[in-house]
């Protein structure tokens, strides 16, 4: 066979072999890789490239080397899952860089980091004041993660004492104009319901790029044509408003009526509605 055909076939074969093995080896973000994985992946890449272009004279040797570099990381990975000791040997341990607001200089020196580099990493996380940091740790990937002092952390509803309903995960039911049946049935809905919702909004399925259903069953759509504005579902706010108005009406009736029994009845009902409104608030008005 001609030389170029050999290379073509071998490259295609290697492509699929490596694709297969990389999927088995698992996902690790390129940015957050420990040095161990980085080296393994690099060597695999280089060996594959060399094999692909037929630079390695003896084919068998090439495949053996590739095999070792693919299998050994996989095996060690598996064992290090079971044994923490081995995991620490291969990947190292996390190092505390700032504790209780104070920098641990010896640890910094151990990591081979200067104060300037530490400040640079902090700025990368949008932290310009060392005084704001409570705790900072360098992970085995070299990445630094920071815990801010409690009064410098962004405020959450918890801090305001405001009760907020937990937000469940939304399901994407329409992707690129195609209906996804599995997410729909995860929410206990079906295509019929979807059709009804779309008709209610006056939108055809073909116009929808992405459609999401949130945990309370409201459908939100993004259309291909961005100039059309789909009606934003305000059902929850309207429901709250209706109930609020009814409650106010009841209070008014209680004041207006001359009938004693009716007065008491209106008053009691107004009170009950008020309590229910308080409970509904976190769910209807996020």
């Amino acid at each position, binding site marked *: 066979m001609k030389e170029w055909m050999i290379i073509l076939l071998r490259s295609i074969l290697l492509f699929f072999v490596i694709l297969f093995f990389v999927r088995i080896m698992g996902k690790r973000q390129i940015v957050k890789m420990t040095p161990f994985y980085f080296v393994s992946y690099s060597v695999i890449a280089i060996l594959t490239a060399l094999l692909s272009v037929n630079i390695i004279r003896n084919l068998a040797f090439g495949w053996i080397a590739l095999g070792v570099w693919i299998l050994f990381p996989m095996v060690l990975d598996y064992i290090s899952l079971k044994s923490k000791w081995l995991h620490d040997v291969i990947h190292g341990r996390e190092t505390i860089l700032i504790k209780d607001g104070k920098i641990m200089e010896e640890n910094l020196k151990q990591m081979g980091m200067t104060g300037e580099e530490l400040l640079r990493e902090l700025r990368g996380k949008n932290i310009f004041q060392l005084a704001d940091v409570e705790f900072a740790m360098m992970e085995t990937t070299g990445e630094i993660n920071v815990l801010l002092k409690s009064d410098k952390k962004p405020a959450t509803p918890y801090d305001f004492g405001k009760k907020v309903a937990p937000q469940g995960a939304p399901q994407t039911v329409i992707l690129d104009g195609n209906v996804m049946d599995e997410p729909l049935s995860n929410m206990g809905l079906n295509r019929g319901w979807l059709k009804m919702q779309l008709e209610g909004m006056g939108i055809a399925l073909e116009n929808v790029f992405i459609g999401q259903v949130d945990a309370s069953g409201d459908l939100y759509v993004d259309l291909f044509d961005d100039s059309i504005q789909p009606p934003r579902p305000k059902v929850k706010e309207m429901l709250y408003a209706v109930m609020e108005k009814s409650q106010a009406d009841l209070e008014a009736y209680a004041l207006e009526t001359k009938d004693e029994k009716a007065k008491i*009845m209106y008053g009691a009902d107004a009170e009950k509605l008020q309590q229910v409104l308080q409970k509904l608030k976190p769910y209807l008005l996020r």
Partner: protein
Amino acid sequence: MTVSSQVKQTLAALKGAQGILRLYSAQSQDEKAISVYQEALFVTNDVIKNLEERLKTIEFEEPQYKGN
């Protein structure tokens, strides 16, 4: 507006709200949300019943506004 038509409006609004509450209590995925909606349904039901009772009395006392 007469009293009876005002009460009728409030009644209609509450019935509409009841429908939506029922929908949400069926659609929601979260346990606590469902129980909150059902409690709201309960209370709304009670209030509706009371209002309907009161409406009968009002219309009895002021038959000229009946059927408005």
